[in-house]
């Protein structure tokens, strides 16, 4: 469980980030402006700060000066796509810069990446009897390496990041094979079948009738 501070004045977006990050086991605290964020940072330590630039009062860049000495990694999440702004943000010591509108999956991947990079969570994800290293794209089953094709690996990661949620077939196809792909529903079924076989998961990946597949949550 990682603690993330979201500094964002738009409740809709702060909520969206919180809901998204809950999928990778992050607990979030929200601050609506720079002053509130500074107070929260003073009161406790966070694993990561997601920082909007345009905030009422103290803006995100200014707040960065305050956060940098604490060593907490920062990702800017902002509508300002200007290259100069990005450079400025990164120069100030931000780890990453995500431009709105962002895909929740992209946010997830970047947050997860920063947390692992900075040693704030283990390099490996544990699911049932399986260990996954997203960075190395490697999988172990009870300590033994499992060979997965790139698609199988992406499919596994998508399932893992949406544990407990029944994912629609179309969305799975789109996320793993891409928008423009002509992969049919059969391709998905074949890959799920192989995953089950290679990982020894028969019941863990459930087929949800009329919807798609779900990776069961840890009991």
């Amino acid at each position, binding site marked *: 469980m990682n603690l993330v501070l979201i500094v964002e004045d*738009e409740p809709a977006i702060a909520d969206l980030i919180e*809901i998204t990050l809950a999928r990778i086991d992050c607990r979030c605290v929200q601050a609506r402006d720079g002053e509130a964020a500074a107070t929260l940072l003073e009161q406790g330590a966070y694993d990561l700060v997601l920082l909007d630039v345009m905030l*009422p009062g103290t803006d995100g860049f200014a707040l960065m000066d305050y956060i940098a000495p604490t060593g907490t990694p920062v990702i800017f999440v902002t*509508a300002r796509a200007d290259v100069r702004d990005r450079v400025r943000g990164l120069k100030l010591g931000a780890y990453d810069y995500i431009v709105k509108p962002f895909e929740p999956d992209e946010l997830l991947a970047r947050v997860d990446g920063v947390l692992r990079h900075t040693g704030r969570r283990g390099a490996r994800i544990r699911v049932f009897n399986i260990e996954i290293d997203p960075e190395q794209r490697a999988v172990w089953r009870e300590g033994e390496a499992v060979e997965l094709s790139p698609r199988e690996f992406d499919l596994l990661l998508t399932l893992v990041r949406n544990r407990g*949620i029944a994912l629609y077939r179309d*969305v799975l196809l789109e996320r793993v094979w891409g928008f423009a792909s002509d992969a049919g529903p059969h391709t998905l079924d074949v890959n799920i079948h192989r995953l089950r076989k290679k990982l020894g998961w028969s019941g863990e990946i459930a087929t949800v009738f009329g*919807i798609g597949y779900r990776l069961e949550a840890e009991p």
Partner: protein
Amino acid sequence: MNRTRTLTRLLLALLCAVLSFGAAWTLRQNFAHTRAALEEQYTLDHLRTQLGVADAVAGAQGTRALSAAVTEYRRASRVPGRTDVGTLALLDADGMILWSDIPVGAVPYDALRRCAGAGTGQLLYARAKEALYLLMASPLSGTAEGVWLLSVYDMSGLLAEQTRQLHSWLLLLGTVLVLVAAALVTMDILQREAERRTRFLAAFSHELKTPMTAILGYADLLRSGEQDAALRQRGADHIYHEAARVENLSRALLALLGLQGGQRLCLESVPATALFEEVARSLPPDIANVRRTAPAGAAVRCDRALLCTLLRNLILNAAHASAPGAPIELTTAPCRAGWRLTVRDHGCGIPPADLPHVTEAFYRVDKSRARRSGDGSGSGLGLSLCAEIAQAHGSRLQIASTVGEGTTIWLELPAGEVTA
């Protein structure tokens, strides 16, 4: 941005200074060269004259004979049509003029004496009235001791030329300075316009991207899998409200573009009381404390719907700036143009630095994006729309504000006919 502007100005000023200095220097050099050439030419002429006169007067005895000899020499050496030859004078040892063809009174006698005193080869300038003379003297050989020959050359032409060049240089400099000033002003205007446009685009994309992020994010969440009911409800709610926000923004933007594109107004005479009544009815229920004052018979010529939008937006802004329940005054008073409509609040006020920008699209004083419902208000376009509506009526939105005391915004409209 500002540093570049200052640097450009500095460079231009420097360029101007260098150019004018260079021009002045060239002018001076030019003049000095012309003068040197003339001096050389006249020195030679003087030498020639000196030899000629010495030859002519050789053997002449007495003043009379001397004078006759010189007169004869002058007559003989005259070339018809030549005007650049000098005039002559012979001075004796006491400084008395023995002979002269210098026009009477042209050159001060004092200058002649000083020139003779200066000695051979010395050039002397004498200024008399508007003219400038070059004087040079040498002792006349072959005559009695101490007779000096003086040549006087009119240099007025040089003076006139110098003045002419100076005038044309000043004219040129003046023109260049005016052009540079005009260029600077134009550059400033263009730069300001470009900055305004950049700000508009940045703000507009921000206003669009924020709701889009929420809409896309929640929609993605909902379509990807079976979420629990509470999350579904929350997501749908956010999508609905953010989409409404985009719709609100696009409506305000369309209204703004329509007005900027010269939309025709539907002008009619509207009694102020009716106008105020209509505005009050359109306000959200939480804005109740609007005090309306309209003298009987006050009526304005306006586009009723647009003016209602304008007043409504101003009141919504006023309510936003004020503490809940604080009074907002909506008044009508006679003015020279007709009637002045004023919206006044006792809220937080607008800092002077922000005042010139508040009617710019998406400009926000508090930089927060707190939203309210309404036509354009909360989209960041409310006040821009008001300013455009006022302008479409041939009026102007005027704003006076003191931080901590409140804001007064008014516009003046022509009086309409009062129907009995």
